[in-house]
């Protein structure tokens, strides 16, 4: 198992946000974490990488319990995180944004260079010296993913990569994610967009009000429309 999360409970102050969240990701798997706005998707990701101060439970990554480690230590073990709001460094150029994400090569994992990322996201190759603040939403989304890939992660948490993007860019994004998958990367992707999730995912979890309500293959989910209607339909 690449990533094993169990009994994750997170609080903002004494407000309980996540209840015993558990999920597993196999090596090279793409897993979707589905749920409505405010269901707890982002908090799950932020808790896994240690950005939520008050959290309990275990996060086992590559066989090592990382739940007590500070964020940068977790990330340095190859667990990459792409935040929902992108959080591009506006004043830094594309190249410099990549430089911030750079980490040493990791044995047994695909190593990324800026040149390879410009192949994956050709748009970025044309604006290497442009400050992040002067890019479109889609370009920023590519940049934030590329920046995390610069750390040569073996698993990536992608928080709503299709949010707010034009349909054409969403397709590009799906292609890029499939390319990453081919490289052997494990991916957890949080989504509200079931259609997008179906394009790329092997399995799915559904989270609702901080609890995991469903776990199964995409085919299982397809076969149970009542689950989709209960937890995902608006």
């Amino acid at each position: 198992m690449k990533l094993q999360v169990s009994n994750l409970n997170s609080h903002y102050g004494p407000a309980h946000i996540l209840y015993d969240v558990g999920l597993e990701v196999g090596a090279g798997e793409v897993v979707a974490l589905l749920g409505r706005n405010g269901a707890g998707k982002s908090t799950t990701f932020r808790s896994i990488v240690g950005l939520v101060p008050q959290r309990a439970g275990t996060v086992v990554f590559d066989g090592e319990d990382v739940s007590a480690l500070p964020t940068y230590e977790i990330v340095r073990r190859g667990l990459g995180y792409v935040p929902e709001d992108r959080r591009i460094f506006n004043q830094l150029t594309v190249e410099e944004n990549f430089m911030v994400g750079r980490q040493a090569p990791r044995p047994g994992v695909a190593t990324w260079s800026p040149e390879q990322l410009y192949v994956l996201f050709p748009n970025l190759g044309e604006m290497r010296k442009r400050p992040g603040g002067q890019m479109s939403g889609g370009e920023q989304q590519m940049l934030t993913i590329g920046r995390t890939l610069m750390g040569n992660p073996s698993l990536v948490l992608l928080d709503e990569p299709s949010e707010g993007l034009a349909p054409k860019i969403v397709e590009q994004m799906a292609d890029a994610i499939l390319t990453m998958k081919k490289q052997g990367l494990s991916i957890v992707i949080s989504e509200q967009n079931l259609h997008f999730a179906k394009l790329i995912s092997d399995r799915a979890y559904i989270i609702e009000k901080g609890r995991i309500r469903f776990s199964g293959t995409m085919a299982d989910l397809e076969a149970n429309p009542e689950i989709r209607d209960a937890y995902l339909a608006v």
Partner: protein
Amino acid sequence: MEFLLVQALSGLASAASLFLVASGLSIIFGVTRIVNFAHGAFYMLGAYVAYMLTTRLAGPIGFWGAILAASVIVAAMGALMEMVLLRRIYHAPELFQLLATFGVTLMVQDLVVVIWGPEDLLGPRAPGLAGAVSLFGRMVPTYDLFLMVLGPVVLGALWLLFHQTRWGVLVRAATQDREMVAALGVNQKWLFTGVFALGVFLAALGGALQIPRTTVTHTMDLSVIVEVFVVVVIGGLGSVLGAFVAAIIVAELNAFGILILPQISLIMVFLVMAVVLVVRPWGLFGKAESAPRPAAGLTIRPWRPFSTAERVAVAVAVAAVATLPFFLGNYALTVGAEILIFVLFAASLHFIMTVGGLASFGHAAYFGLGAYGAAFMVKFLGAPMEAALLVGPVLGLVGAVLFGWFCVRLSGVYFAMLTLAFAQIAWSIAFQWVDVTGGDNGLLGIWPSTWAARPQGFFWLALAVAVIGVGLLRMLVFSPFGYGLRAVRDSTLRAEAIGLDRARLQWAAFVVAGTFAGIAGALYAFLKGSVFPDFMGIPTSVDGLVMVLLGGIETVSGAVVGAVLYKALAIWLMSQTDLSKLVLGAVIVVVVLAFPKGVVGFIEDMRHRWFAPKKAAAEAATLAKVEAAR
């Protein structure tokens, strides 16, 4: 003409050190969001350590080696302070960090005198640069020429560091989003420490390089910190290039101000700063802060007026204090009156800081204006104390109306800096307009009426004024005006969307705070029997800040307790030890570490934990939801 050119060159030489210190402050602020008040102290330490080393090491290598070694040693001290003190309080309200570094400044001031003595020290000239060069028929020190070259060289080196090295890129990234940098695998703890060491290194270098130009004194920290604040604000916080340009502007203004308008030379710089902030609120090269944090954090327990029981308790306490003149001697009563006056002063600052959400660094201006107002009434109109006490504070009100109009256009650190600038302008006017204010000699013979001339009478007067003043301020907090202010503070956009006029509300709050400070100042004039420019000096403003933060910024009336504790402690220490600043600074540091919510905030927390644990948990849950929704 030649003379002007030489004067301009001299200004450029002064700009070099100013730039070094300011760029260090700017870099530190950019990444850590800490306004490092101790920056001036490190500048001074750089000069002292360099003095110590240069007088022991001979030859060019010895001299320049000593300058560099001194800067490195002081940088290590800075890193130590960051690791031991600041790391613990990065999550505290940002003014608390300022308070902590202020505590360190106080300690350094005394330590320097203990180690190196109170005399001014004259270090060696720079080997090889001791002479002067003839330029346009006038002599220019070679060392000045060296400094002129050094400024741009350091600017270039910093640019390379921040743009051509990964460390520099990380620093720039962290300036924008620290958490994201951590989420990309960077240990930001060491990044912060590194940045702090670099900033302090630059400050110490700026100080060390002053040795061949001026004497080393134990007051050079405060004089430089004010100028550096001005430079950083004009240039834009976080911008190194801005610090460079602004250092030149400020140094040239100083150099020419003396020539052209000696009477208002001190004001010029601050006037320029005020103009820059009004036209470009984030400085010449600064960038708008995305979301300025309000001075007061989220209040966990909503404020409420006193309950009946609490009112009775307060009334009993006031009555008890009112009986003190029957037990205490004259000295104790005079001290008591002084404390009461500062209670009112601190409460007025507390009002603008916590209810208004605007941290003023120059609140002493209105205190001083009130004092001068009262003194003018006595001196020029021969008015009795009663009339002077009523009319004097109007000068504080007028000052607050005028300065406040400019200040409320800004928020956060920039607001604080502009208030500081206006206070310095007011101070400079009082200092330089000798015909009216008596300048440094002050105005003497401001004595109270007969009934208040004895310490007992004056104590009662001060008590009455303080109680009424604090009571009125509390009433304002719980008036529609107070609610509007807090709405504007907590969510400016939403408040404006429901029709509240942010600028006008905050302006009104500024005037209210200034007026009450003026009342306190007028009383103070009669307590001391005199008025001096230092009434509106930076130390008075900082005293007020310490009182507010000590009491607790998230409380309604914490400043009252903070003022009593701080003033009593300060006066008592002054009588007990020559090292009062050392002890006071240490106390401030300890309090910041032990009571990050202030003394009253701490007591309230305890009270709720012991007496209403369930209610406290529910309140905290509400807060958590609010934070989660942000």
